[in-house]
């Protein structure tokens, strides 16, 4: 029974050196998925863990995940941010059960091993045994050193109030990891202002985690799937657009500036556009340009593998991808604002948040299409998806009619996954 199956291949059969045809098995194979976890989430990459504003005070912590591993982001007495793995050094228990809170130390309830906020082991009950009748019974061996048994500490990088971490202490500096092209758009959004947290949305999407990266690297679908965008004239084919990638093509920015001239109908060319359709309450689209935007009104930044930074007019958020097996991921949205926002601007950001998230006018359907793609991939793993809009190449463009960013991501994926 070891002949190769033509229906259920064990490895992706790419049709060429290119990445314009993506084997379904890349989304369905558990072994490949484990290699992705290892190579993208646990080694040589930075993963998103949160925003500094989520843990403003000493002892504040937030529990989150990198890949499938539970981690805790915590601010220590010196004000530094540490990220430690949520696994007790003793019996391996995931000791931290709250998702947020404030602690002076971490204590595993099982045997009361305690750790500093930096993750150093500080207390082991009965370490020196029990004295009874002048004798010492039990205890840890004489050569047991607490310094050998801290929590797993991650390397941490913060920039503009955003916290990244890596299990890999050899990882390149965050700025090099993002690369100058994408860093520019990162710094545009996170330009040093203090952030304020507006809240969370959490959804579990039954699809492979890469599909969410691809969704936000795909400017082909918004004007077609998201008919709400089109119906109310928010998406127009004359929007000035750019697609940019880092040198390795793993990260990208989709940059768009709302078209101004002409009637929307003439430039939309999409049947779902209804000129007569008006919102009953136009305040959903009460867009007020902000000084920090510069020109673009929309910049969607995909940081491989774990996060998407959203600026859709006045709505800004981080979207955290937490994979759970090859066929599902948790998608956590953190909406935020800025310290200097007026009350009106905060209300505006919250109102525009109705467009996004698991029930949003233009985001709920993203989760749906991902689910139905995954269903098909599972049933026909020998087949492949097309990403040929705009050709077979990987290149930055000044238009949206291309799937170049998806091809770029898979070029990188192949480089890393096919390396021995």
């Amino acid at each position: 029974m070891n002949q190769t199956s033509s229906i259920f291949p064990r490895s992706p059969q790419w049709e060429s050196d290119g990445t314009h045809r993506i084997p379904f098995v890349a989304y369905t194979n558990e072994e490949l998925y484990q290699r992705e976890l290892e190579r993208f989430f646990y080694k040589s990459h930075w993963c998103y863990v949160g925003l500094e504003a989520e843990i403003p005070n000493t002892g504040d912590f937030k529990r989150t995940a990198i890949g499938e591993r539970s981690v805790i982001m915590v601010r220590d007495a010196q004000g530094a941010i540490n990220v430690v793995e949520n696994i007790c050094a003793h019996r391996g228990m995931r000791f931290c059960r709250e998702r947020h809170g404030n602690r002076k130390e971490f204590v595993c309830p099982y045997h009361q091993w305690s750790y500093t906020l930096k993750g150093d082991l500080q207390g082991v009950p009965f370490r020196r045994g029990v004295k009874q009748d002048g004798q010492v019974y039990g205890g840890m061996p004489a050569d047991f050193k607490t310094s050998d048994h801290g929590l797993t500490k991650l390397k941490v990088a913060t920039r503009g109030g955003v916290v990244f971490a890596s299990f890999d202490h050899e990882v390149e500096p965050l700025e090099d990891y993002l690369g100058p092209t994408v860093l520019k758009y990162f710094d545009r959004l996170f330009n040093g202002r203090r952030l304020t947290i507006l809240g969370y949305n959490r959804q579990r999407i039954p699809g492979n985690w890469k599909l969410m990266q691809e969704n936000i690297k795909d400017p082909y679908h918004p004007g077609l799937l998201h008919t709400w965008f089109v119906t109310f004239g928010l998406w127009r084919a004359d929007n000035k657009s750019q697609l940019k990638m880092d040198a390795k093509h793993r990260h990208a920015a989709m940059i768009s500036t709302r078209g101004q001239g002409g009637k929307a109908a003439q430039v939309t060319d999409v049947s779902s556009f209804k000129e007569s359709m008006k919102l009953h309450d136009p305040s959903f689209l009460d867009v007020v340009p902000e000084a920090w935007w510069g020109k673009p009104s929309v910049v969607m930044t995909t940081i491989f593998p774990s996060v998407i930074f959203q600026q859709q007019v006045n709505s800004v958020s981080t979207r955290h991808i937490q994979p759970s097996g090859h066929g599902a991921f948790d998608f956590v949205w953190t909406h935020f604002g800025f310290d200097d926002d007026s009350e009106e601007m905060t209300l505006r950001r919250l109102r525009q948040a109705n467009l996004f998230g698991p029930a949003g006018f233009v985001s709920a359907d993203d989760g749906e299409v991902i689910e139905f793609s995954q269903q098909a991939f599972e049933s026909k793993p020998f087949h492949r998806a097309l990403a040929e809009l705009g050709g077979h190449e990987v290149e930055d463009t000044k238009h949206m009619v291309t799937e170049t960013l998806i091809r770029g991501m898979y070029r990188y994926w192949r480089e890393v996954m096919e390396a021995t």
Partner: protein
Amino acid sequence: MRIDFEDYFALTQLYADYAAIVDSGKYDLWPDFFTDDCIYRLQPRENYERGFPLATLSFTSKGMLKDRVYGIQETLFHDPYYQRHIVGSPVVRKADAERLECEANYAVFRTKLSDASTVFNVGRYIDTIVRTPAGLKFASRQCIYDSEMIPNSIIYPI
């Protein structure tokens, strides 16, 4: 303040009618349960209890509810599903001549075509209900849900 039987009957009728309509697929009738300057919020319990203002959906006028209905019917691509609300008896927290402040637990089951019924969204309504010439209407309905993970998406009104 105590409310009389007539009021309590009208209140339970409102809750039952609301559940019947949002489960019936006749979403056009959903906004009529609300006042013109109503509030409708679907919010994770986490945000509600931590004082974060973000809601999964947050509407502040009947017009917005009508826009949502249009989105459900015309623009939001989604897997078709049935939903079924089970709503507990309302607890009346406050009542006076103009308004009632009430709460009720709810559970919503979702059934997709060719699939089993599953628990979809579970939480608590926190309501302000006002007396109008057309009967009781929601001035505010907040759906504060316990469900930690939305199973992909929520399309229809809770």
